[in-house]
């Protein structure tokens, strides 16, 4: 089901969490809300879920105005960063909760719980308590619980934020596959650009309560709308008063038109990638990303003078 957010504002005391935000999420899509903490992404997600009421503006889910609908009747699945597991219930009871509330027949509940536990690879854990599960398992249980009621949309608030790096990577890939299987409209919040790029079809960049840009991962990386989006998504370095991707800079051994003179401070070998740190004539420092092969070909050494030039058609934004 599609989600339409129209001119939503939300303040907490003096703090403006959302300032006139409008957004459309297509039916069946997988969208990431990306931004720094305090940028408003969690608040936006909670407004969609009905856990916060906006001061102004409207939220529609599947074409119906849901702005004043309490969370109980929105039929959204919500997954919390810290799992919000019901600690006094078994895994099966947790997953069954929404169905029990809806007074579904017991055999239907049992069948659905079985099916979901298989889907999240927790079959065999039905009778355990959340305290007996690992973080990743708890989060999968929380997902199964949210999916049990067949929600119109699935909302995830920093779902992998509390997990360690390896588990996080696994779950990302797994969420992607799950979405391919279930096709429920999914929105997740993250502050990790790599996570957003890897998982989402559409990324919404939020900062200071407003939307900076909406687009596919490729669009955001290749044509960022502004300096903020450019620096938030992928690495940047500065050259001749412009922000530029460090891999969009050519290192030349001879002077050329529009090339700036620089001295190599340090060469860092990171395997396939080589980082070259340089000082420019005006005292600024910058860095350039090249491949191991390029570095060998150029035969660079510390202290040498080289010339830097933007490669053709680079991604760039003016320094504000």
């Amino acid at each position, binding site marked *: 089901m599609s989600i339409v957010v129209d001119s939503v504002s939300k303040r907490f005391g003096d703090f403006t969490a959302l300032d006139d935000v409008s957004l459309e999420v297509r039916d069946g899509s997988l969208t990431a809300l990306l931004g720094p903490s305090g940028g408003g992404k969690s608040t936006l997600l909670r407004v969609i879920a009905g856990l916060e009421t906006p001061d102004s503006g409207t939220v529609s889910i599947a074409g119906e105005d849901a702005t004043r609908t309490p*969370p*109980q009747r929105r039929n959204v699945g919500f997954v*919390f960063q810290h799992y*919000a*597991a019901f600690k*006094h219930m078994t895994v099966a009871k947790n997953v069954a909760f*929404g169905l029990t*509330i809806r007074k579904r027949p017991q055999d239907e509940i049992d069948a659905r719980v079985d099916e979901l536990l298989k889907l999240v690879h927790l079959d065999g854990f039905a009778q355990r308590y959340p305290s007996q599960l690992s973080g990743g398992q708890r989060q999968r249980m929380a997902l199964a*619980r949210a999916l049990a009621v067949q929600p119109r949309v699935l909302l995830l608030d920093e779902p992998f934020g509390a997990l360690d790096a390896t588990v996080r990577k696994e779950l990302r890939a797994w969420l992607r596959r799950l979405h391919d299987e279930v096709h429920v409209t999914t929105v997740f919040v993250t502050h990790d650009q790599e996570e957003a790029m890897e998982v989402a079809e559409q990324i919404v960049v939020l900062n200071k309560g407003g939307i900076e840009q909406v687009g596919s991962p490729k669009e955001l990386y290749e044509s960022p709308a502004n300096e903020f989006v450019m620096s938030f998504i992928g690495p940047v370095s500065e050259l001749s008063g412009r922000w530029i991707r460090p891999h969009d800079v050519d290192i030349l051994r001879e002077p050329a038109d529009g090339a700036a003179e620089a001295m190599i401070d340090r060469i860092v070998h990171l395997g396939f990638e080589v980082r070259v740190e340089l000082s420019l004539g005006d005292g600024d420092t910058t860095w350039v990303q090249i491949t191991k092969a390029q570095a060998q070909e150029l035969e660079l050494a510390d202290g040498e003078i080289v010339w830097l030039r933007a490669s053709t058609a680079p991604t760039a934004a003016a320094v504000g």
Partner: protein
Amino acid sequence: MRSKYALRFLALGYLALLLGIPVVLVFVNAFQDGIGAAWSAVSTPEAQHAFFLTLVMVAVAVPLNTIFGVVAALAIVRQRFRGRALLNALVDLPFAVSPVVVGLALLLVYGRRDGWVGPWFAEHGVQIIFSTPGMILATMFVSLPFVVREVIPVLREIGTEQEQAAATLGAGPLQTFFRVTLPAIRWGVAYGVVLTTARALGEFGAVSVVSGKLSGQTETATLFVENRFQRFDETGAYAASVVLALLALVTLLAMNVIKPKEAQA
């Protein structure tokens, strides 16, 4: 390392002199004329009535204070309203009030002759002071804060995420409370109930002021102990004390069983 033993000796010695030896002596004194004498002292009609009356106090005050405690704790932790901080402070007030002052306060409001509302109740045939309702009120007053105080930190600890999760899964406020919140705070509530019960069982001063001390009528177990002792029936006083002390030990046991579970939950 000698200092370690000195500290241990000092601490345990103090506890033995203040707590251990006197408590053991009460048991010894109660049974000095044999178990039979002790038993008959606490099975007289007066004694039985006194223990029954104490049970009535507990049976009314504990459930009411438990409901109040949970509701007040929810209001203080989960709601935002003006006067929330004041309510939070006022809830503790009974801890700072002498039991005798509690008795006096109730007398001034519910007293039959000059109380604020006592005469109105008397006209309608309800006697509060020098009768069971007044004693129940006194017991409720002194044991009021325990459940609130135990539940507030547990509510803060569990946070609101589980409740929000229940809401997104379709649970209404009452369903959320009974299926999610209450089970999550149950050990905190249980601990508060144990403390409330202990206080209600043992209240003396406040009840003493409002009871009128009519033996066999408005005499609770603690008043019975005093009465027996003043009448030089030491066996009766010690025997009833032993019953109350055993109840206190049961309370301690319950506290020790519940506390770790509360910490774990």
